[in-house]
């Protein structure tokens, strides 16, 4: 069959927007007068019905609630963050112990990212997942933890940390490893491993959290616990335990 220009135009427009045909008198009239185009129109409407049903993936209510809880938590949180220059002396032994992880010279301040913004992103992200702040036992298997760390290009050098949860999360446009470990107090402490953030480090202090951002060999680490959590030993343990793969 040789199609005329109207049929070609009709199929082009109908194939792009079948629902739009009803609003176009010229196209509507054409399909009423042309049986092949009428069939084509019907087949496109049938296809769209199937597409509509297929696109309609089941979404769990808990997923939606979890997504939106971030805004609720954020509304309630007093998010006053202060940043202080890190105490270099304090980190010296840590650097020595984890030389493969940390930037060798802390004085090389090749700063590309303002620490305030990064800390803000970290705290914001922690607020997004409030259920991780109340974990009492591991919700991630050892294999899953291993897989997450592998994807983040990190290896676990020792088993000094009790890891409760591990997942990869988009943070500041990168894929960060969001890890929750048990702190000294027994409460969950968040460790964010951010491979693409250059920073000289800084302190995180809010009404709810305290923590620190530490420069690392590739990017930065954040260790954030509750307001009263003592993180001194845990920071060292984290720096020793998580090492970047070559």
């Amino acid at each position: 069959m040789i199609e005329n220009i109207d049929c070609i135009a009709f199929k082009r427009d109908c194939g792009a927007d079948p629902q739009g045909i009803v609003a176009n008198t010229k196209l509507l009239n054409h399909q009423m007068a042309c049986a092949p185009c009428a069939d084509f129109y019907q087949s496109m409407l049938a296809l769209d019905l199937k597409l509509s049903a297929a696109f309609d993936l089941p979404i769990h209510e808990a997923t939606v609630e979890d997504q939106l809880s971030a805004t609720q938590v954020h509304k309630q949180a007093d998010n006053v963050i202060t940043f202080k220059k890190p105490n270099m002396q304090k980190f010296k032994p840590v650097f020595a112990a984890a030389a493969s992880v940390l930037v060798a010279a802390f004085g090389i301040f090749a700063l590309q990212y303002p620490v305030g913004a990064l800390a803000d992103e970290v705290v914001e992200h922690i607020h997004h997942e409030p259920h991780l702040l109340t974990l009492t036992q591991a919700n991630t298997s050892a294999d899953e933890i291993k897989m997450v760390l592998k994807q983040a290009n990190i290896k676990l050098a020792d088993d000094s940390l009790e890891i409760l949860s591990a997942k990869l999360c988009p943070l500041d446009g990168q894929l960060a490893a969001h890890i929750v470990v048990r702190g000294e107090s027994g409460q969950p402490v968040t460790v964010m491993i951010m491979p693409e953030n250059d920073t000289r480090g800084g302190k995180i202090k809010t009404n709810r959290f305290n923590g620190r951002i530490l420069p690392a060999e590739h990017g930065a680490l954040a260790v954030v616990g509750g307001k009263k959590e003592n993180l001194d030993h845990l920071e060292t343990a984290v720096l020793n335990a998580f090492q970047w793969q070559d």
Partner: protein
Amino acid sequence: MHTDDEQLNNTSSDMGQAENMPNFDQFSHSFAPDLNRFLIWLCKDPDLAADVGQETWLRAWKSWHKLRDAKAAKQWVLTIARREFYRFLDRRRDYHMTLEDAIISNPQHFATSDESHNDDVREALWKLEDDYREPLALQVLMGHSTEEIAEIMGMKQGAVLTRLFRARKKLQAELIKDNEFIGPRSNNITPIM
């Protein structure tokens, strides 16, 4: 790259927030399931979609008070969501989720035993190139006009029409190949040229 505020300039005026603006909580609860569906089709990774969704709602909430046009709310949130996802991709150029990876890591979103009639079509949609699947999802799932899709995707309307046409053409060919009935009469399927 545009900021959320720059995007808002297209949807706001100097006047205060319009009285007919929906409450953020009501709007987000009604729109979040569809946004999540769209993000799963965009990201091909439900976990990533959930995280991008979280970022999106937080950013939307922060700027909600500046939004002036209730009709533009969905388009504005979608624009934020797309930007969040592509910002992630920009930084993670090595990120690549295959259909196989997606099925293995999130079987609950792909094993549709209760609605097996959708399986073939879903599989065909997953196989479709991202450039074709995204405008189709915006049109069929999110109900946007081709003009709105062009705005959301930052493309000319003609280019959107071309992609939509080709998307349906590819899907039809795939479904005919799999003997999926798509026409008004199974023995009289009209090919899309």
